């Protein structure tokens, strides 16, 4: 009779308990990079219906319960681009309400995610994303012809930005106000005849643009109307340009015994491949901690600007908000905290994995195959669950650009030329029969992602 080797029992030992803990540490990080690229491709092709369908198809499998805010943000922006302003507002309202609820949990959230993977928490949005919700909603109501509704959103945005100013004043953080949001507020207040409110918003916008110049390298736009026609109306053309930068997961390994940090990451790792690489690397090293952190990658887009022409009056759009720069700067400012938290989380996982291995060693011996397997496997599993939070509002544009034209009253065709970096015309879009009324503003928007 041969000697029977004892087997690892699933009902005993730390391995089972370790597996129970994994869901807390594992990622459920929202739509994949591949899906984001698909959606951006559809937007670039002006297939907004296709983009919407792709997002809706992924509601459960790609977004899931913890990313409903992200789902409604992505959906709301695409619906807006498609001119479905009512539906867009319904989506963004759902996102905003949940964001408000999650805001009150941010105090306890900060403590909770010290140990938990960021991806396990419900996505609440970045600060600038939160402000953009109200900006988009104000525009939704504006395009629906509901100025009162637009002003509600403007007031909400004003309160939010005041809160940012109160909380972040004195701190080394760039995003304390939103220049574009304040500019939009000034126009809408003016439309409503609230000239004092308009003046205040305009002054805040100018102050914010000065801060933008230093923080984001955004030149202060004039944003004044072109054309000298008196007694006419005004066209405000809003060009949403480019694609928002993508968040990716990057990682580095910390050798446990040497207590040395070694950057060992591939560039532009997607979250999924990063986890696989982490697992392989950790499996080989055995005694190392793998730490992941998010970073932004800007996918290229060709259109750099635009020129608007109607009734013989023409103007180039000016950069009113560089969302890509805002996003990247905001993340950079928080990177130290993110990495510290990631290291703490990875350390806890290392301790847990080591505890499992120690239990197995005690039971089967340090030189047993079970111990070696547990040691390598636990470390690899820990690394596989280490992924940065790469969630972001992916359907935002990279830029908001604005042109204002004074036009005679009547119906006009508005021609927009989209320009490359050298000023060469890449494409043209014509908006037929745009009505300009005397003494009134008409708002028009277009979305490019090419």
């Amino acid at each position, binding site marked *: 009779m041969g000697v029977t080797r004892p087997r690892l029992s699933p009902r005993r030992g730390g391995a089972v*308990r370790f597996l129970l*803990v994994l869901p807390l540490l594992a990622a459920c990080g929202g739509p994949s990079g591949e899906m984001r690229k698909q959606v951006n491709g559809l937007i670039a092709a002006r297939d907004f219906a296709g983009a919407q369908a792709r997002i809706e198809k992924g509601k459960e499998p790609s977004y899931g319960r913890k990313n409903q805010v992200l789902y409604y943000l992505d959906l709301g922006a695409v619906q807006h681009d498609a001119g479905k302003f009512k539906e867009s507002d319904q989506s963004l309202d759902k996102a905003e309400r949940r964001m408000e609820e999650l805001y009150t949990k941010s105090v306890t959230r900060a403590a*909770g995610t010290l140990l938990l993977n960021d991806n396990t928490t419900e996505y609440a949005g970045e600060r600038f994303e939160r402000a953009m919700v109200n900006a988009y909603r104000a525009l939704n109501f504006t395009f629906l012809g509901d100025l009162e509704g637009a002003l509600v959103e403007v007031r909400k945005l004003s309160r939010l930005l005041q809160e940012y100013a109160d909380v972040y004043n004195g701190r080394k953080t760039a995003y304390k106000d939103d220049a574009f949001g304040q500019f939009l507020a000034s126009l809408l207040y003016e439309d409503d005849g609230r000239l004092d409110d308009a003046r205040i918003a305009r002054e805040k916008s100018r102050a914010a643009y000065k801060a933008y110049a230093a923080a984001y390298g955004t030149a202060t736009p004039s944003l004044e109307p072109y054309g000298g026609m008196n007694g006419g109306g005004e066209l405000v053309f809003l060009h949403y340009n480019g694609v928002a930068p993508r968040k990716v997961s990057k990682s580095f390994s910390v050798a446990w015994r040497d207590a040395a940090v070694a950057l060992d990451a591939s560039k532009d790792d997607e979250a999924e491949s990063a986890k696989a690489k982490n697992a392989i690397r950790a499996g080989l090293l055995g005694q190392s901690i793998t730490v992941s952190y998010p970073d932004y990658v800007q996918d290229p887009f060709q259109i750099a600007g635009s020129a608007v022409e109607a009734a013989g009056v023409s103007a180039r759009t000016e950069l009113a908000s560089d969302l890509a720069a805002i996003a990247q700067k905001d993340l950079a400012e928080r990177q130290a905290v993110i990495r510290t938290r990631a290291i703490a989380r990875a350390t806890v996982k290392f301790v847990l994995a080591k505890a499992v291995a120690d239990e197995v060693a005690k039971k089967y011996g340090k030189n047993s195959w079970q111990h070696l397997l547990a040691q390598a496997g636990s470390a690899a599993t820990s690394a596989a669950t280490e992924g940065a939070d790469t969630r972001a509002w992916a359907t935002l544009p990279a830029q908001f650009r604005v042109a204002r034209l004074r036009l005679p009253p009547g119906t006009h065709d508005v021609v927009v030329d989209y320009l490359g970096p050298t000023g060469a015309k890449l494409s043209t879009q014509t908006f037929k029969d745009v009505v300009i009324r005397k003494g009134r503003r008409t708002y028009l928007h277009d979305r490019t992602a090419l």
Partner: protein
Amino acid sequence: MHKEMLKALPLIVLGLALSACGGTSVHRMDAGEVKDVSGRWNDTDSRLVAEEMITDCLAQAWYPRALKETDGKEPTVIVGTVRNQSQEHINTDTFVEELQRALINSGKVEFVASKGERGEVRDERLDQDTNASEETRTAHGKETGANYMLSGTLNQIVDQEGGKAVVYYQTNLKLLNMKSNKIAWNGQKKIKKFVKRSKAGW
């Protein structure tokens, strides 16, 4: 230390898993019941503010003066626009309806239709000109004009920090004499709510 951590963690996982259970339940309630859920402006606010302000309006000095001017005949009132200047998307049409209802039910004024309603009625008269028999047509130009117009604004101030907020609503209404443009009555109703959102997140 390691063993203690490992022993505790499964219980935590189990607790989190159980907290996800739940479903939708529906409970019927009386339409007049007060039920504050989100802390936002709701039907109760609309009804209470309208009733209280109309009661106050009709109790003020302008009313007996108006009766005297019309030899005891009830003054005719129209409700104009109530503008929403808050930070919430409040359906002011509902509030206007509440004001109208309170005015009509008071029995102290005659009430005429709003601009939108009059437009609809006038369209109907135009249709009657074409399609109705002569003896059943309603003539144009015989509407009762209002003596007074009631209009106003709904304002809001929010003072918030974290999950705690004090939400202050102020409704201002004015009753204007259509003939003299004088403000016959200026009323104000304030509502203050303390809204606290739970921090429990897990």
